[in-house]
């Protein structure tokens, strides 16, 4: 939090130093979200609330200096009716960017996406996932970073330094979609240092005709915490513990006609598994996507996606997906309302249950759009993540207003 204040003061300082035209040239965009989430089954654990509604606001300010320098500031606020961990303020971006013909430098708070797969992005190592905000895991916290990118014929060479680690937001005592007991919000443990122990990443990517390749090295904290049992007044609590890891990973995508072949892989060392062992492991997402254009009437496109997610730790992995098959279809109606339906199912090949996800989104007016999302968690074996979520299948309706 202190870092945010510092950066905020920096911004104020820079505003005071420039003329009034600064304010006129600032581009502003805002999105207001209103959402309600309904859980058909009653809560399993004590103190959990049943349904929740929330209001969120995301704004973005953008200013371009002369000579290819710019700054973007994007604060986000959510107020949630039931889970205090879901009510929050975050700076999704506060990034200064400067670039030349073959280089780019940025620093501040940013969002970085490295993945190619649809079910899970193993290789996304820069930002922490905001699990409370978004059960599909697509929302990320703003990450303090400095990034330098070099562009050469041999590809894009990127270096990142992340000076401050952000723990994963997890549901609070009253929230749904949580473990029992819930994770204590305070005092997460950071192995071999503190939140201020820097992390480092190096990445390369390039395109060779149909093929897009990338590779990275990462030295820092695992984004997913392991459980640190803490007994307070005779009551067992979960605390989060983050381990230092070393990781080599990469992506491969071949785009061949209407067929896309995708792969993400990581080789990681240093993370504790469920048995508290620190053996190295590999994890992969391998998939294929096929696109049908203009089926069913004039404009509808259909994508079929099949991905297999593997983690060599299998059931010792704290990840939900470790030996799972992901099957999905995306219907893009290409109509006036930009309507889209995304349906996916995840089958655990170890017989550890199924997850079904559904998302329908469409434009309502030029400045209003709506989304209906749902997830069903089924047949989790006792002790598994899906078993923990057995009462938590949900349906969410969200309206998004743009201004």
């Amino acid at each position, binding site marked *: 939090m202190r870092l945010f204040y510092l950066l905020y003061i920096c911004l104020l300082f820079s505003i005071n130093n420039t003329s009034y035209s600064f304010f006129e040239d600032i581009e502003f965009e805002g999105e207001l979200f209103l959402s309600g989430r309904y859980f058909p089954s009653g809560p399993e654990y004590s103190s959990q609330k049943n349904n929740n509604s929330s209001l969120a606001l995301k704004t973005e300010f953008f200013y371009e200096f002369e000579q290819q320098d710019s700054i973007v500031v994007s604060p986000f606020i959510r107020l949630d009716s039931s889970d205090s961990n879901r009510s929050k303020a975050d700076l999704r971006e506060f990034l200064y960017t400067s670039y030349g013909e073959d280089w780019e430098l940025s620093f501040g708070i940013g969002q970085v996406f490295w993945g190619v797969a649809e079910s899970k992005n193993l290789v996304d190592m820069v930002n922490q996932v905001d699990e409370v905000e978004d059960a599909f895991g697509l929302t990320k916290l703003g990450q303090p970073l400095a990034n330098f990118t070099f562009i050469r014929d041999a590809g894009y060479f990127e270096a990142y330094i992340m000076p401050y680690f952000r723990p994963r937001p997890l549901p609070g005592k009253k929230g749904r979609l949580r473990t029992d007991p819930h994770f204590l919000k305070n005092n997460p443990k950071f192995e071999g240092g503190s939140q201020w122990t820097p992390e480092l990443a190096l990445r390369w990517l390039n*395109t060779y005709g149909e093929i897009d390749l990338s590779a990275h090295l990462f030295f820092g904290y695992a984004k997913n915490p392991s459980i640190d049992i803490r007994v307070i007044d005779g009551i067992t609590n979960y605390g989060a513990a983050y381990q230092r890891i070393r990781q080599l990973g990469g992506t491969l995508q071949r785009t061949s006609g*209407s067929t896309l072949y995708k792969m993400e892989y990581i080789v990681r060392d240093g993370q504790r598994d469920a048995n508290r062992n620190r053996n190295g492991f590999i994890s992969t997402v391998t998939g294929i996507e096929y696109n049908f*254009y203009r089926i069913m009437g004039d404009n509808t496109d259909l994508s079929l996606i099949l991905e297999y997610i593997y983690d060599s730790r299998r059931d010792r992995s704290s990840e939900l997906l470790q030996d799972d098959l992901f099957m999905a279809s995306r219907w893009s109606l290409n109509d*006036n309302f930009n309507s889209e339906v995304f349906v996916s199912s995840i089958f655990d090949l170890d017989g550890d249950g199924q997850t079904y996800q559904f998302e329908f989104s469409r434009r309502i007016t*030029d400045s209003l759009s709506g989304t209906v999302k749902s997830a069903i968690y089924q047949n989790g074996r006792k002790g598994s993540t899906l078993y923990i979520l057995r009462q938590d299948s949900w349906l969410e309706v969200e309206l998004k207003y743009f201004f």
Partner: protein
Amino acid sequence: MKQSLKIFSLIILGFLNLSILPVFAETPEEKGLRLAIEADLRDQGFQDTTSDMVMTLRNAHGEESIREFYSKTLEVEGDGDKSIFIFDHPRDVSGTAVLTFTHKAGPDDQWLYLPALKRVKRISSDNKSGSFVGSEFAYEDLSSQEVEKYTYKWIEDIACPGFEEEICYVNEDYPVDKSSGYTRRVVWMDQSEYRIRKIDFYDRKNELLKTLIFSNYKQYVEKYWRAHYLHMVNHNTGKETEVDIEKIVFQSGLKDSDFNRQSLKRVR
């Protein structure tokens, strides 16, 4: 004797030559190709353009919706153009951008930028026949037109449709790519400046699907003609799409480095 024989044979050859002249003259296919090459040559050297566009989609009941976007195009020597499309309106898609490397031979390379996720996604360029943002334009109607992407056949020379004082070449173009949504296009191009006036699109069943009219041509840098109003009508559905090109800037000094994954993330 030898000399007279030579002269004689020359005369014979001369006659022969005259009589077979129509065979040596260009076929309709050759003429079609020559016209396409000529039109392409007239557009060479434009370097780069930046355009602001408003698209109006109208369904058969007259209900309208508006799309706004701008595009940047870079001429690439020896290959197809590079371009970036950036959406401004409606707001739910604003900031979404598409980077395309057109190739003279083989499929184009295409990347999509999704601003909410900060994700650059390599996408299939096979969706040529797919609708562009729900409009009556398919992706292939808007992509960079390269000579190599069609085979040609000249049909006739007639008065330009809707512009009778000019004479137009009428060419048939046959897409080389099998993923095209058309069997053929019939293109009316004026003889004075090789400006396209009208295109009829024939679907896979070889039935007339759409008609596109180009008008409001303006000349830039004393050479390049650009239409500022495009009107597409779908004969099957009665839907139509108008494109108003509000502004075109030529030769603003765009570079190759403005058309890569890194710059795609920076556009807004």
